[in-house]
């Protein structure tokens, strides 16, 4: 119960930070005459972030271990997507001195990595629990 609550809340918070952060706390460059790559990365991260947050909320509510295992895999892949969007798929501005490269990109990389690592730990934990429940460890 405790693990379900803590992991669910963590994913909701991380998802909200990934989705909303590039527009608020660690915002990308302001839109001038032409929107730059960082603007489109931020837009895409809204989607990825909300997906992570909503999946985290489902993780909080659902007790069935199999479903939670599936949700954890979804979170892992969503974390990978959130990481790839600003680095490979869309990218940020060319100059390293722009705010998007100094602040937004490192923040998104760290948050996405946290989602990936936490969901991986969740997957392993759920699989181990499943093995214990099925009696594999009883001698």
């Amino acid at each position, binding site marked *: 119960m405790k693990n379900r609550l803590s992991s669910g809340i963590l994913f909701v918070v991380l998802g909200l930070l990934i989705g909303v952060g590039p527009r608020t706390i660690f915002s990308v*460059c302001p839109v*001038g005459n032409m929107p*730059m790559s960082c603007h489109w990365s931020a837009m895409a991260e809204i989607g990825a972030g909300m997906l992570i947050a909503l999946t985290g909320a489902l993780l909080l509510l659902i007790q069935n271990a199999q479903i939670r295992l599936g949700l954890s895999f979804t979170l892992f892949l969503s974390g990978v997507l959130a990481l790839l969007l600003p680095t490979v798929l869309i990218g940020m*501005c*060319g*100059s*390293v*001195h*722009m705010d998007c*490269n*100094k*602040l937004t990109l*490192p*923040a998104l*990389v*760290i948050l996405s990595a946290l989602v990936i690592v936490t969901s991986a730990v969740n997957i392993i934990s759920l699989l181990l629990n499943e093995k214990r429940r099925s009696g594999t460890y009883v001698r």
Partner: protein
Amino acid sequence: MSDKPLSITRLSLYNLRGKAFRTGALIAVVLVLAFALFSGAVLSASLQNGLNSLKERLGADIAVVPLGYENSYQGIILSGEPVRFYFDRALEQQISKVDGVEQLTSQFYLSTLSADCCSVPVQIIGIDPETDFVTKPWISEVYREELKDRQAIVGADIAAGKDNKLTFYNHEFSVAARLEKTSTGMDNSVFVNIRAVKALAESAKKQGLGTNASVQEADLENSISSVLIKTERGYDTDQVVTNIRREVDGISMVKSKSIFSGFSENLGIIKAFIGIYSAALWILALLILAILFSAIISSRKKEFSVLRIMGTTRVKLVRAVLTEAMLVSIVGSLAGVSLAAVVIFPFSAYIGEQLGLPFLLPDIGGIFVYMISTLVLSSASGPLSAIYAAVKISRAETYITLREGE
């Protein structure tokens, strides 16, 4: 149920796992200590590296610029902040005849928006390959041939476009080489042949592209932006400055040692503060952990008495307590160092900019040394704090301790 023998380490792990909140609190204290020690050491070293880099790259002893443009020149050196200012090239000849001037070279500055960059202006610096002594040592580390008219050497932070080319005012330049990171204005500058940059400025002027009054009004062919001077051995820089002022009017001068000494003083204060703060934090952490361990061991007197009755020797009891303290410290140290690394390294560019000082991260070897030192100091804090309480409980009379409070 596991049938492994109950060793000191396993006993300590069970004790720590059994009281998760208490263990978490102890780890948190060590985590904060390790975070502060590691981040302080890396910040201090980065500022020192930045300052050393600045000192090496100042090159010239004196820079002569148009009257009132001293701050603009410092902006180029420190951050590569794009500027354009010009004065008559004839002044270079006048200055070369002044007593105490050993060597001099002129530079021409132009700023532009790179076609491949978002919206950050780029500083183009035109150098005279025949007389340059300031940037040549650094350029020759990466490129030894003569810089042709359509070639550029770029600073570490300049983003080159496709096919490794840059376009300025509709003129294409190929990137011949890239300089190493210096944390000075060189990182944001593009170095080209002075003939090429003047032609570029003239072309931009004719097209009316992105140039300001200083470019529009200047006779670009006979203009330069600065004269960089190396003073003769045996001459004081201030004396040479005075000599130049006597001979030449309408100029300002910037001494390299002035730029450097200002930062050096600031850095000295910051390093002293970081050192005192780190030492004070380590002592405070030791005191807090000592109090916590004393309270924890006090609350577990009956547990230790039972262990003694079961045959645990006094030495083993001390080892059990110190092992718990060591495990807590190791976990806290690793977590603190990891957290500091996650905060400092990805955000180093932002931190450097906010500090407003030259900032250059140490190399991998240096970072590794700081990491190991932090881990050792932080890991030692737990056992050092717990040793007094551990020895005290091991010497207590077992029966009296067990029946205490009855």
